[in-house]
C-alpha cells in the first residue's frame, strides 16, 4: 500500500483509487472466518456452517451459526460472530415488527433489503465500525418458493442458487460453482454441501463441527447429531474413495 492511501484506511472514506478500504478489510475478516454454504433446491434451502472451536474444552452447542429469524426465514452467518449476533437481533426485530404491523411473516427478499440497508449504513456514517460479517439469508417466499440471498459487509446482496462465505471462500466457492447441479433433491443437496465443506478443508481440520439447517414450506429444522454423523460418515467415505481413485 502506498503512503498516499494510508490516510484513507483510517475512516470510511474513498481512497484516491476509489476504494473503501475499510469495507475491503471487513470482507477480508469474513474470509478468515469458518465457511458457511447455502444451497437452494426445488423446495428447500439448506445452510451449512463450519464451527472451529477455539478450545477442545468448549461446548460446541454454545456456538451457533445458523439462526432462525421467523417461521419462514433462517440466516447463516460468517465472520465475526459477535457482529453477526447483533445483525441477527436486528433481523428478528424486523420480523417481529412485521408481525405486529401486518400480522404476517416478513418476506425473505424484504428482510434481505432491510439487512443490506443496515449494513450499508455502517459504511457511511462516522462513529460506527463496519460489520465484519456476511449473511446467507434463506427462506420461503409468499409463493412458497425457496429463496437464498447473500449480503456482504458493504451491504450489497445478490440472490443465488448456491453460495458460500468465509473459509477463504475462494476455494469453497470454486468447488461449489463447478460441481453444483440444478434440481437436486434435499438429501442430495445435504450430501453435496457436506462434500464441498469437508472436501475443501485441510485433512487435519476435517473433525471440525458442522451445523446444518433445512428450511422448507413446512418449516425449519436443524439436523440432529445422529443424522449429521451419518451424513458426515458417508461423505468422508466418498471423499476417501475419490481421493483413492485419483
Amino acid at each position: 500500500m502506498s503512503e498516499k492511501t494510508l490516510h484513507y484506511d483510517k475512516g470510511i472514506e474513498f481512497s484516491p483509487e476509489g476504494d473503501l478500504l475499510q469495507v475491503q478489510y471487513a470482507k477480508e475478516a469474513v474470509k478468515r472466518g469458518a465457511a458457511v454454504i447455502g444451497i437452494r433446491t426445488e423446495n428447500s434451502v439448506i445452510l451449512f456452517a463450519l464451527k472451529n472451536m477455539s478450545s477442545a474444552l468448549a461446548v460446541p452447542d454454545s456456538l451457533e451459526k445458523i439462526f432462525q429469524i421467523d417461521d419462514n426465514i433462517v440466516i447463516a452467518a460468517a465472520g465475526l460472530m459477535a457482529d453477526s449476533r447483533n445483525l441477527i437481533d436486528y433481523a428478528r426485530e424486523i420480523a417481529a415488527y412485521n408481525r405486529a404491523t401486518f400480522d404476517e411473516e416478513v418476506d425473505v427478499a424484504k428482510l434481505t433489503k432491510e439487512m443490506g440497508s443496515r449494513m450499508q449504513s455502517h459504511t457511511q456514517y462516522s462513529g460506527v465500525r463496519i460489520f465484519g460479517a456476511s449473511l446467507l439469508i434463506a427462506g420461503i417466499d409468499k409463493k412458497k418458493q425457496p429463496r437464498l440471498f447473500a449480503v456482504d459487509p458493504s451491504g450489497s446482496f445478490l440472490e443465488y442458487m448456491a453460495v458460500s462465505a468465509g473459509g477463504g471462500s475462494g476455494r469453497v466457492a470454486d468447488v461449489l460453482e463447478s460441481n453444483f447441479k440444478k434440481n437436486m433433491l434435499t438429501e442430495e443437496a445435504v450430501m453435496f454441501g457436506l462434500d464441498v465443506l469437508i472436501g475443501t478443508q485441510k485433512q487435519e481440520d476435517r473433525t471440525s463441527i458442522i451445523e446444518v439447517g433445512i428450511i422448507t414450506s413446512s418449516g425449519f429444522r436443524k439436523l440432529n447429531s445422529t443424522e449429521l454423523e451419518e451424513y458426515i460418515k458417508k461423505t468422508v467415505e466418498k471423499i476417501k474413495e475419490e481421493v483413492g481413485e485419483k
Partner: protein
Amino acid sequence: MKKEEGEEGILEAKGTTTVALVCKDGVVMATDTRATMGHFIASREAKKVYVIDKLKAMTIAGSVGDAQKIVRIMTAVLKKHRMENDGESMSIHACATMLANWLNNYHKGSYGNYFSVQIIIGGVDSKGTSIYGVDAAGGVMPDSKMISTGSGSLTALGVLESHFKENMTTEEAVDVAIKAIHTATKRDSASGNGINVVKITEKGIFEIPNSYVEKRVNEFVKEMK
C-alpha cells in the same frame, strides 16, 4: 375537550350507508352518494368508494376529511409496498392490520385526536377474495362475508341478512348491494341520492354503470308494490 353540540355537524360531513359483500369470484362494494353537514345535504354526488391498490378498494363513512386523508396515505403506502416487493401487492389482511394499528395509535391520543371513520377494505389477493371492516379504535372485523357501515347500516344489514347467500355470482351480489343501499336510503335521512356500485374480480375493479343501477332500483320498486 368535549365538542360543543352542533360543532361536529359543521366541521365534519357525516351520515352514510356503505355495504360490502363477498361473492363467488369477487367482492362487491356499494355506497349512497349523499354527504351531510348536520341537516344540510352538502353533496348529492359524494364519492365513498376509493381504489387504493391494483385489486383493492375502500369504502369510507364518517368524517369525509379524515377518511380522505386515510385514502391518500393508504394509496401511497400500498404503491410503495408494490415497488419494494417486486410488484407484489400487500395482502388485504396485512393492509387492514396496518390501518388498524395506525388508527389505534391515533385513538389512544398519542399522536393526536382520533380519526372519525368506519372503513371497509376489500378486494382480491393471492389468498382469494375478502373484505375487512376497520373502525376508528382500530377494531378489525377480519375476513367477513358482509359488512355495512354508516348511519344507514342497520337498515342495510337487515337486507343483507335476508338476501345474502354464500357463493353468489357477482351479478347477484350487485343486486343485493343495490337493494341494501336503496332500502337504507328510504329509512335514513342522512343517506340518499344516488348509489355507487363497484365490483372487484381477478380481472380488475369495475364501476357498475349508473344506468344499470337505476334500472335495477326501478325494478325492485315495482317488485315490492
